[in-house]
């Protein structure tokens, strides 16, 4: 049984992410925002299901496709939108932009633009947790494409060898850019690659937020109990292009239509009565969330730009070197 409060939270977050990303798609078309935008339509259940199993001070890493992770991890919507708009009050003071939405105070170690950069960083955080005998959960999010990169494999090997109870969360969304996953995989199942490291792995339906939550929760306790890393593969579909503006010519319509039948939002709605939410409850959540998203985008619009010279700040902690007495 999941507590009522958590169920409400899950529904709230899953709709927030969808509305947020739909809004991003709209402004991307209107070309009112600078930079690359990678939306995560189709990933909502993975973002929310995993985060539902975490505490706010647990550690995660994300990628350029990070809006859903940031929202689910508790980053302020206003600060996310302001960042995407490049404003001074943005979550990274306008220095990061959409690809790097991160808030350390919410347990985000960072959203990295380099594929497969995250897992090793999370390994380090998990090592710290182990050395300091703290018990925070450490999760790295990455895509199916990242499993070909050496940095992922090196992190996986070390995590196993050092008995680090971190969670690798691979979102298998069918594509790495314009390349289909069923072409780039060498193994039958993506998670088969963990066999090389004798690492535990589980596969879940990434469209079903409650399944994602359940698997993640169990994996976290198993990882901690056995002192071992665990690899989770969640299968879903990338409805968004690689980035906003992608022609998506390589995604056949019949495939999209088929995937729509398992759209995570559709499934969440269908399942709602099972979790004690009636039509009115859902409508109330949806209206609330829509308003919040609208407000955040209105907020960003009114925010000040950074000063040009702000570019010079915070490159180092201490530079030129100051001698402290």
């Amino acid at each position, binding site marked *: 049984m999941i507590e009522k409060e958590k169920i409400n939270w899950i529904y709230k977050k899953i709709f927030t992410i969808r509305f947020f990303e739909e809004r991003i798609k709209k402004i991307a078309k209107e070309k009112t925002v600078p*930079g690359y935008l990678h939306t995560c339509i189709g990933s909502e259940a993975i973002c929310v299901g995993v985060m539902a199993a975490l505490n706010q001070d647990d550690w995660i890493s994300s990628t350029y496709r990070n809006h859903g992770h940031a929202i689910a991890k508790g980053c302020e919507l206003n600060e996310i939108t302001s960042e995407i708009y490049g404003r001074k009050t943005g979550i990274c003071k306008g220095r990061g932009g959409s690809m790097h939405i991160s808030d350390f105070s919410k347990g985000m170690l960072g959203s990295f*633009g380099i594929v497969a950069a995250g897992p090793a960083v999370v390994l380090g955080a998990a090592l710290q947790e182990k050395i300091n005998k703290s018990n925070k959960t450490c999760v790295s999010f990455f895509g199916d494409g990242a499993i070909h990169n050496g940095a992922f494999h090196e992190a996986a090997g070390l995590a196993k060898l050092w008995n680090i109870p971190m969670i690798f969360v691979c979102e298998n969304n069918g594509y790495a850019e*314009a*390349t289909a996953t069923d*072409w780039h995989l060498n193994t039958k199942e993506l998670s088969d690659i963990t066999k090389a490291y004798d690492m535990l792995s589980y596969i879940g339906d990434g469209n079903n937020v409650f399944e994602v939550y359940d698997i993640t929760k169990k994996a976290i306790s198993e990882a901690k109990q056995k002192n071992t890393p665990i690899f989770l593969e969640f299968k879903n579909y990338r409805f968004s292009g690689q980035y906003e503006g992608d022609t998506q010519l390589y*995604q056949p319509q019949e495939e999209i239509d088929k995937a729509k039948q398992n759209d995570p939002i559709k499934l969440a709605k269908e399942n709602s009565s099972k979790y004690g939410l009636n039509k009115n409850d859902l409508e109330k959540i949806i209206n609330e969330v829509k308003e919040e998203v609208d407000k955040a985008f209105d907020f960003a619009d009114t925010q000040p730009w950074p000063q040009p010279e702000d570019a*010079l700040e915070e490159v180092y902690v201490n530079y030129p070197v100051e001698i402290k007495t």
Partner: protein
Amino acid sequence: MTIKTVKDAINDALVQSFEEDKNVILMGEDIAGGKGREQYQGTQDAWGGPFGVTQGLYTKFGGERVRDTTIAEAGFFGAAIGAAMTGLRPIVELMYVDFAGVCFDQMMNQAAKVRYMFGGKQKVPMVVRTVVGAGFRAGSEHSQTLYSLYTHIPGLKVVAPYDAYDAKGLLLSSIKDDDPVIFMEHKRLYMTSCEVPDDLKPIPLGKGRIRREGSDVTIIAIQRMNLFAEEAANELEKINISCEIVDPRTYSPLDEELIFQSVKKTGKVIVVDESNPKCSLASEISSLISEKCFSDLKAAVIKITAPHTPVPFSPPMEDFYIPSTKKIIDAVKKLKDV
């Protein structure tokens, strides 16, 4: 004579090289695109790389020579080295130069050193095509230039064309060249165009180009900075200041003679480079001039570069980061009064 964009000129040079030499192959992520969806119409060659530069090559030359890769740069860069040593002429695409970090070892320790270290018996005729440059609001990990990172390394050649003419001519040479070449394409220049003769001959590596003749001040401009140098020179002409613009085009080897001749003529020099300042092309060229042309100089060389920071995302900060036409004009005026 045809007007071509930089993007199309590069595509032309690739097609021509593929036609001329069956050993030329191309590898990279989504350089075709649509892998795994061949059974559906219209999915093949869906991308041609993120900027569409290589579009059509897969359709023309097939998957044996035009190979989409996984996100495994260290793997396919290393493969390019072995293929080059044994007879192919591989071109690999590093989608953004910012990803250099994940496959730098291949270029720094293998491609660059194989010939020297193994007694001069081998060669590594490969080309890395990569995308550089700020001004795209692409943030800290997709906007660097890193020219000097590669220029620093003995054994690598470094090419960075400004216009479509040079892009085609220099890429033809780079592919024919027997050494590893890093060919840097600026994302803000892809859609700029100029006249490119259909039968353009390869432009030798190591030959710079005087883009504008002038007598008062020499502006040495690195890649996209030629645009701002030209704008500045046009403004300054109105107040009777005559600027000479030197575009070195290739950074290793560097056409030092061409630079020195211009310095001898004007005695006043500005180097404009959108990279970070420390150990940059700007500092290298400035130091060469100070060393070799000291007595010709009427003033210290002025460097206009980005600050010592990563590339920021937000437009006001990124615009501040990139050298500007105004900064060049101000520097020229300062030198003129010397």
